């Protein structure tokens, strides 16, 4: 019992677990705090003014900020990229500007070896004066800026749609000037050397021989160190499992022999019944996301027409991709929130009055935020909204939704946290803060908390700082905190089913916190190797993100032990195990966690690989295999678990669940192995052999072998959508049609008792 905790239940695990988890997490966030400080103090400067050698003003710092807003508002980060971050169809505009400017300068200097050396020196010399805030471009650089302003005017004001952009995307000369200023600034930080260093602000990224950009010694060194760290980490892991394996993971013996309750015997609380509508919304958003994914893929296979129809007039590539990414977060998060609503009363033993009403409110809020933000993004990309508008424009990749919708989404998740607190209040009051209900609640509370950190990325701020905070959401929130919450949730699901003992589940969660905090928190920095951060971000990011593979390996190995524990119970129960396909989706999560997040992630993680690879097909390969393979499959697993109790046993579409399971997995495997992986490998080869600029060009992407590989994805995508997503939609629809058996609320208090999912048949045998 905790000191002074009154009647609280005592903590079920050793306090060392709690201390270790707290220590590792505090260390991780302490280092992140230091890195945040360094981001602001050692990031590249945005000059107050950029002038030519003759003193003529070229652009201002304000133009750079406004240009970034124009870039984002027009969805260009979902079309191409800057500093390697963004979409994969258009060019990387940093590399694009750098190559074109250097080529123009080379031409201006008359070509030849001397001119090459002169261009290299001009681009590498840092002529920024920190006292005055003025950056001076050489004459060749200034002329290149003027020439590139004309080039981008022609590029973005093109009335045709054969690049995947809407016609006449940006025609305002002022916006073109600002946009070019922004791109010019990114190219400047990519080539000008840091004061006191022999490499640029972006660690010499992108590879561009014309300006002398090649991998730095740090890039090579930290690649080697992180590789060694990985090998040592995995060795240590297996050593630890061998030594202390009996005390780690899902091992241990379940006490009782149990019978699973038939779903027909499980009476649900009002909020639990509302989750039927949540999962229908989840399924429809999933369908929309998959269809939009098909559309973006079609652009890569045939850029000029969608089976004879000019799709880019209405749904240009960047809008389709914006929605595709945005919806992937929406449906997965909505599924997690719904599963939380379903599980909370099981944990508490009852549901408080009006929880159902709150669930309806949350669902309505999510629908409004999803629809409102998607519409706003569409209006922004079609040019109806002013860049940087609070209500209608933001569009950082993955943080696409405009700020007002971003705030509302964070508020919606905070409402959900309040719901969790209402449901669990009594349980929390009588339980140790180190036990499962508190871990479930605190990990849930972190969901709105960490997501809200993304609000620190504002469209007009320096790109380097916005990227730093953006990856707190993209990596830390998605890959660490959602992972932690789902581990707690899945653990509790199986504690409720009676197949895992609470103490064993707790150990797994603490282990999860320790392992993910050790690698995942600081490992977030592997996304910002080349965003203008100082070299310590690269060093720490490389080292700790390599260590992330260790927990992924461990959890994959452990997944089988956990399933094994469950298996014992299935055989001994006299009633059928109701969650065959939920468990199989969890098996798939283990598989894709290892392959998609572990193998495909590590494939692109080393700084030296990332240097040539960032923003190419291998990133897409990792993103699809890990986002859909892990979070998507997990969301579907949670959906099937919940829907099992919402649909009467005799109406449960076992066959559709099976079809969905196989189709989603085969479709995803086909997607990765038929197209994304080989394309990525070929593109990486092209990047190293010919150059990053060439590997990102439309000419290369739409070349013969690439197009063939893109078309080869069609069968897998079709199976994924028709055989995987549609059956899941049908199951979700059945959930809404039946909505489970309602439990009766206490007329005096309004409290509804929560159902039990299993019954203990043989409580204890002391023999």
């Amino acid at each position: 019992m905790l000191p002074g905790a009154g009647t609280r239940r005592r903590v079920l695990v050793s306090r060392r677990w709690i201390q270790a988890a707290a220590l590792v997490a505090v260390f991780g966030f302490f280092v992140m705090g230091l890195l945040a400080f360094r981001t602001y103090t050692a990031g590249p400067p945005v000059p107050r003014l950029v002038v030519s050698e003759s003193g003529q003003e070229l652009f201002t710092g304000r133009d750079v900020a406004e240009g970034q807003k124009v870039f984002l508002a027009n969805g260009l980060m979902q079309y191409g990229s800057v500093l390697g971050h963004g979409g994969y169809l258009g060019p990387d505009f940093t590399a694009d500007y750098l190559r074109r400017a250097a080529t123009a300068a080379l031409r201006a200097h008359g070509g030849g070896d001397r001119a090459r050396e002169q261009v290299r020196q001009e681009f590498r010399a840092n002529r920024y004066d920190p006292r005055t805030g003025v950056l001076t471009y050489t004459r060749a650089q200034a002329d290149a800026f003027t020439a590139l302003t004309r080039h981008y005017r022609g590029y973005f004001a093109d009335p045709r749609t054969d690049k995947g952009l809407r016609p006449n995307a940006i025609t305002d000369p002022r916006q073109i000037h600002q946009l070019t200023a922004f791109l010019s600034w990114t190219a400047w930080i990519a080539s000008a050397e840091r004061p006191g260093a022999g490499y640029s602000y972006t660690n010499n990224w992108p590879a561009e021989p014309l300006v002398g950009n090649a991998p730095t010694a740090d890039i090579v060194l930290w690649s080697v160190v992180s590789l060694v760290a990985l090998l040592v980490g995995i060795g240590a892991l297996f050593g630890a499992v061998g030594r202390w394996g009996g005390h780690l993971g899902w091992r241990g013996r379940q006490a009782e022999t149990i019978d699973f309750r038939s779903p027909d015997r499980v009476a649900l609380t009002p909020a639990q019944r509302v989750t039927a509508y949540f999962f229908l919304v989840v399924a429809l958003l999933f369908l929309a996301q998959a269809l939009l994914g098909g559309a973006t893929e079609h652009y890569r296979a045939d850029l000029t027409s969608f089976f004879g129809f000019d799709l880019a007039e209405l749904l240009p590539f960047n809008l389709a991709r914006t929605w595709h990414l945005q919806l992937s977060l929406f449906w997965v998060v909505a599924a997690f929130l719904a599963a939380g609503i379903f599980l909370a009363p099981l944990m508490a033993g009852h549901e408080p009055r009006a929880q159902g009403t709150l669930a309806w409110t949350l669902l309505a809020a999510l629908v409004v935020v999803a629809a409102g933000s998607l519409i706003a993004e569409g209006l922004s990309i079609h040019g109806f909204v002013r860049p940087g508008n609070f209500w209608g424009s933001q569009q950082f990749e993955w943080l696409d939704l405009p700020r007002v919708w971003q705030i509302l989404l964070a508020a919606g998740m905070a409402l959900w946290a309040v719901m969790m607190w209402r449901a669990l209040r009594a349980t929390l009051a009588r339980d140790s803060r180190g036990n499962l209900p508190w871990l479930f609640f605190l990990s849930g509370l972190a969901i709105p908390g960490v997501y809200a950190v993304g609000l620190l990325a504002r469209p007009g701020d320096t790109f380097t700082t916005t990227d730093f905070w953006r990856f707190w959401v993209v990596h830390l929130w998605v890959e660490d905190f959602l992972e932690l919450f789902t581990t707690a949730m899945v653990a509790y699901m199986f504690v409720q089913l009676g197949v895992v003992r609470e103490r064993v589940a707790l150990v797994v969660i603490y282990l999860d916190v320790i392992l993910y905090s050790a690698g995942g928190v600081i490992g977030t920095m592997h996304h910002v190797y080349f965003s203008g951060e100082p070299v310590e971000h690269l060093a720490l990011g490389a080292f700790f993100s390599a260590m992330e593979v260790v927990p992924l390996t461990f959890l994959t190995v452990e997944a089988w032990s956990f399933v094994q524990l469950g298996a014992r119970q299935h055989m001994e129960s006299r009633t059928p195990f109701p969650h065959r396909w939920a468990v199989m989706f969890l098996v798939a999560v283990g598989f894709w966690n290892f392959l998609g997040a572990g193998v495909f992630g590590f494939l692109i993680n080393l700084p030296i690989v990332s240097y040539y690879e960032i923003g190419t097909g291998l990133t897409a390969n990792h993103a699809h295999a890990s986002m859909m393979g892990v979070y998507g499959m997990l969301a579907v697993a949670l959906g099937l678990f919940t829907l099992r109790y919402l649909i009467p046993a005799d109406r449960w579409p076992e066959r559709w669940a099976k079809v969905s399971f196989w189709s989603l997995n085969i479709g995803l495997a086909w997607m990765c192995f038929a197209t994304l992986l080989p394309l990525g490998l070929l593109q990486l080869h092209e990047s190293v052999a010919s150059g990053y600029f060439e590997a990102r060009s439309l000419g290369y992407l739409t070349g013969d072998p690439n197009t063939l590989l893109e078309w080869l994805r069609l069968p897998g995508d079709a199976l994924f959508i028709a055989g995987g997503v549609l059956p899941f939609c049908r199951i979700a629809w059945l959930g809404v049609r039946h909505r489970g058996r309602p439990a009766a609320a206490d007329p005096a208090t309004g409290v509804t008792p929560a159902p039990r999912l299993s019954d203990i048949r043989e409580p204890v045998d002391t023999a």
Partner: protein
Amino acid sequence: MIFTTEAVLAYGYAAGLLVTAAGLDRMARHVGRRPERHRIRPDHDTRVCPAGRTPRPADREPHLARPSACVACPGGPGCARPGGGEIVRAPRPWPHSEAGRFHRGLALVLVVLAASLTLIEAVRRPAWPDLALAAAMLTAIAVMARWLVRRLRATPAGFPEPGGKATDRDRYASVRKSRP
């Protein structure tokens, strides 16, 4: 080189897919049939360890054999952990059987993909040296596909029916005193 670069890349990738498929099949074997360190003798409800003995379970950790038994055993270091010999019986069929089926199913998908790539490349570049490579590749794919299909058929899902009784009921596993 007598083969075109594209053909070598395409068939090389197809061969890589076959190797990955073989790896998945191996994984399926691993997850579907976990190695058993102690044999169960249902007739006597006892276990026989790899050294041929019948160790008793430790008091605090019923899934471990008593350390004293393993320390004294010449084969102990090879099969026991510091806390004692681990008593792990082969898991019952489901979900390992179906997880194995899942891995074998995906392995077969990769073989189909390898076949598709090989055929497409053969149609695209129908020059004879490349076609010889394609023929060799298709032969390997056919052999692999046949092998995998047979193994997939031999891997039933094995989802348990209610009330199904296991023949090798494990007295150490199913009923034990709970420690909170």
